């Protein structure tokens, strides 16, 4: 006669199945621990975001990086050899503005050093990648009919971007003296933008905000409004596309993904 009843066999079987299931969920001998979601095959180790903080030093390093973006852009523009004839005066202005940016970069890096931070001595890599390199590629395209004009358009946009950036960090900097120092440079950038706006749209008609009657787009203005704007800046440069339009880039002030954190380096 069988020693086990039908009921006890079922009970033993259920307990065994639960044990096997629990064992499968637990640690297994010979399997390396990692933070990845369980998956079949070999996957790279997950890398979390570094624990970064938006400090006064980070904001100033970002400002310094923009100064180097401007310096590099003016150097590239001057190196193109396009400032001749009607654009010779623009070449003189470009040299002056480039030199101003060198002074700004030195001043900002001086503040960073005073705060115990590491100076930032190259262009912002993120802004370079998404704005400046694509714009310069369009400007230097062999089919572009007016690279000299487009260089001034790009410089005007970068000056506006710099002015906006200094204006926007006023609310983020914790030290009031740094806010004043930043905006002191910001007003220089605003002057740069106004001078370049007059180069692009000269005379009285280019001073205040206006709309192009043909395109219904805003004309370049030296003083576009009663308050410094913090809006995206459109830059239309390069050769005509097949459909008769030209490429437009939208520039925005540095955000959390383009700040010069301590682990962002110039190497």
């Amino acid at each position: 006669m069988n020693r086990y009843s039908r009921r006890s066999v079922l009970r033993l079987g259920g307990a065994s199945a639960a044990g096997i299931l629990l064992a499968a969920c637990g640690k297994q001998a010979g399997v390396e621990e990692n933070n990845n979601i369980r998956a079949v095959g070999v996957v790279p180790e997950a890398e979390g975001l570094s624990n970064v903080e938006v400090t006064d030093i980070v904001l100033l390093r970002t400002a310094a990086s923009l100064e180097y973006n401007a310096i590099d852009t003016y150097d590239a523009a001057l190196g193109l050899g396009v400032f001749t004839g009607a654009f010779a005066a623009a070449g003189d202005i470009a040299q002056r503005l480039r030199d101003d940016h060198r002074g700004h970069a030195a001043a900002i890096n001086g503040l960073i050093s005073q705060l115990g931070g590491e100076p930032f001595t190259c262009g912002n890599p993120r802004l370079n990648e998404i704005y400046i390199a694509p714009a310069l590629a369009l400007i230097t395209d062999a089919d572009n009919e007016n690279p000299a004009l487009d260089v001034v358009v790009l410089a005007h946009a970068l000056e506006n971007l710099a002015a906006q950036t200094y204006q926007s960090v006023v609310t983020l900097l914790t030290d009031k003296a740094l806010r004043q120092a930043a905006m002191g440079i910001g007003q220089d950038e605003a002057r740069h933008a106004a001078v370049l706006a007059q180069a692009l749209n000269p005379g009285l008609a280019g001073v205040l905000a206006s709309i192009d009657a043909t395109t219904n787009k805003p004309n370049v203005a030296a003083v576009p409004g009663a308050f410094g704007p913090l809006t995206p800046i459109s830059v239309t440069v390069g050769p005509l596309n097949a459909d008769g339009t030209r490429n437009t880039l939208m520039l925005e002030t540095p955000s959390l993904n383009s700040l010069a954190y301590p682990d962002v380096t110039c190497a």
Partner: protein
Amino acid sequence: MTRPAAITPPTKADRELLGFANAAEFAARDLYAIAAASAAFTNDEKTVLVGFHNHHRAAAQALAGMAGSVATNEPAAAVLDIFRSRLSGSNKNAIFEALRELENTLASTHLSLVGTLDGTGAAALVASIVNTEARQAATLALLGARSLNDALTNGAAPLSLEAGS
């Protein structure tokens, strides 16, 4: 990642400073009204002067919004006295130069406020006004046939707090 702090409202001391700036901006508005009425300028030039007049009025009104009851909404007599006598005559470049100095003086004044105000909302507003007044100063230098250096630099001293009353 630590996010930036929230915008903070003006303190009582901030509102006093914003009231001072409000009066200075209304004085600038009135000085542009005087200049725009001058027979020295063409209609196109007057359009620009009226545009700058309107910018100062907008700045004064925005500052009043931040200053609250402290704002007098009256032009600062001391600022009017400094510049009014230089806005007469037929030499338009001399008038442009006086207005450029006015813009640079206001930009320097507001810049000093940016370094003094505790509330970040007020500091942001004043910074945006600095941006525009710097552009206006540069433009007036170009319209008045000044040098590039004059357009790009600001050597003006800020107004003292007493000048705002």
